[in-house]
């Protein structure tokens, strides 16, 4: 089966700044594919190139078997795009926005009214149909943008941080909706910097400073992590942290509540013993824990480490 998106050596430079650097990517059909990366890592630039908003400096993009930017116009009817910033018309009502998008996207005639009311109900916007889009809450705006993006039943959905400024409950509903669409046959590329969202994706690509630094299913990424994770509980966490921080064996530390999470290099296979030895002087309780996506993310985006995962 042909992949929905096939990207080779994708590069975008703005002057001397390289926003996206030699990215290769293959997105198969009917997947929720996550783009994980810190702010400014090139996620938005990459997604904009994939829908033809920006022209790549170098590299090839093939979407749904068609080449971008040459065949951008043809694929526009089959792609739905949701921008990071709200880009519906604030002074138009919810219904007017939907009608405009429907006509522009080619949903026209008898089917239009039915399709719109179906989407409004599905995205719980039916009671706001005559409200100005600009006066909706953050979550409602997001639902409207998603409803508009799928109005023409696209085969591919590109979602740029669709759940920023949205509360956790709305976010969960939003993701449930994404999986429903995926099961119905759509392929979804979604950017995020939230770990719980990343965990839900079928497949993840982690971007850092324009480069792809990790690629795989969340489970693979966690299993293949070239590090070991320990949780330390004790009365003097801050001192322990300072103590560990300067050591080469320690890749990263993070405090969470009263415990300290330590990511250790696992090259010598002596991690637990080494840690106990190092912390002899402290009254510390050391537990080995399973890696999380956050650990993967921290490892992948630490700049002093070359490709750790992958």
């Amino acid at each position: 089966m042909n992949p929905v998106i096939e990207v080779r050596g994708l590069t975008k430079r703005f002057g001397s700044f390289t926003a996206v650097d030699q990215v290769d990517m293959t997105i198969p059909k009917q997947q929720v594919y996550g783009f994980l990366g810190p702010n400014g890592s090139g996620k938005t630039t990459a997604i904009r190139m994939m829908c033809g908003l920006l022209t790549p400096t170098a590299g090839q993009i093939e979407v749904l078997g068609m080449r971008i930017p040459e065949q951008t116009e043809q694929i526009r009817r089959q792609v739905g795009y949701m921008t990071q910033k709200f880009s519906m018309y604030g002074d138009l009502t919810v219904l007017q926005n939907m009608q405009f998008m429907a006509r522009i996207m080619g949903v026209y005639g008898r089917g239009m009214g039915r399709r719109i009311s179906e989407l409004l109900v599905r995205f719980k916007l039916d009671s706001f149909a005559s409200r100005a889009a600009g006066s909706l809450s953050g979550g409602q705006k997001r639902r409207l943008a998603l409803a508009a993006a799928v109005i023409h039943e696209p085969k591919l959905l590109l979602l740029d941080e669709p759940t920023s400024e949205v509360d956790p409950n709305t976010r969960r509903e939003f993701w449930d909706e994404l999986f429903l669409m995926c099961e119905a046959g759509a392929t979804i590329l979604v950017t995020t910097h939230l770990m719980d969202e990343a965990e839900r994706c079928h497949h993840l690509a982690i971007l850092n400073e324009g480069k792809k630094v990790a690629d795989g299913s969340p489970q693979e990424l966690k299993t293949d992590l070239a590090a070991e994770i320990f949780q330390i509980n004790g009365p003097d966490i801050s001192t322990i942290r300072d103590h560990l921080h300067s050591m080469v064996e320690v890749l990263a530390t993070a405090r969470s509540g009263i415990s300290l999470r330590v990511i250790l290099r696992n090259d010598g296979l002596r991690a637990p013993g080494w840690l106990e030895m190092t912390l002899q002087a402290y009254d510390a309780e050391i537990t080995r824990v399973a890696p999380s996506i956050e650990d993967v993310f921290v490892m992948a985006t630490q700049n002093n480490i070359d490709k750790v995962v992958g």
Partner: protein
Amino acid sequence: MYSPVPSFVRIAAVCSKEMIHLVHDRLTFGMVVMIPLFQLILFGYTINTDVRNVPAAVADNLNNSFSRQLTMDLQATQVVDFVQVVDTPQQLEALIQQGSVSAGLYIPRDAEERYYTGDRSIAQLLVDGSDTTLGGAVRQLSRFPFLPGGTISNSERVDQISVRLLYNPERRSALFTVPGLLGVILTMTMIMFTSIAIVRERERGNMELLITTPVRNLELMVGKITPYVGIGLVQVSVILFLGVALFDIPVMGNIFPVYTVCLVFILANLTLGLMISTLVRNQLAAMQMSFFILLPSILLSGFMFPFVAMPKIAQYIAEILPLTHFLRVIRGVMLRGEPLTGLVGDLSYLLVFSLVFLVISTLRFSKRLE
């Protein structure tokens, strides 16, 4: 996947969206009526090139029936209005310098002798030349035929060339100004409205979504300007109505040619504004660019100064501006009742202008974010 729909569906979608924006945007909507109203009243009542009642002073050193009749006759022309009487020419100059009067009449002690001798002028008019229009009007009084005693003789002093004013026998400025204003107001509002049309989508962040849709450049452009064609025609009606109601402007012949000319002119300005919109990055820059076009339009088109009196180079520049062609046509149609057939040249220029700028805008508008 939905099957492709005809182009007009997308044009209609853009068009109806623009109209909703327009209804919501009270400021723009207000401008549609308020700009014509204010401009027409301001220009119509204040721009008056028929100089009347220039405040003047008189220094009459002769002070007899001859000099009093001279003063009264000059007063009767209504060009000057003697509001002050002084003793010496020096005082006249002082008054003009202060600005309390704009002209001064000095009648010397020997004025009557001078008249009958006939070799020297009998009196002197001092005129404030810093305002050329005013100075020019008062200067004309030098040819004023003065006959002491008030008798009218069948003198030999018949004008060598007689002048007959056609179409505006009363020499009312409003008659000349209102058709011009029609052009100036349309230039101002039409360019302004469309110059912000595309840049506004960019500023409000709608562009990123709009350009990922299948809407074509030309569809977007046509959809955007169509509502403003209607707005422009509404403005034309407002101006014509006010012109007739306030200034008694005669609309010669049929109203149809007037609207045809206006329609073509509206298109030219809308496409020009559209082009500006594809050039600039924000609404402020769009406004500045609009004024950059508006100013030469007002100064060079023949609205302010007679076209034929301008230097050649200014005339060439003026020929580029749509307003120049519109003024030539609209004055012909409105004041002289000229048929459209005689104005094909200027009308085709405006049509070609619209087409060229529509094409430029369409080509310039790129469905990319860079």
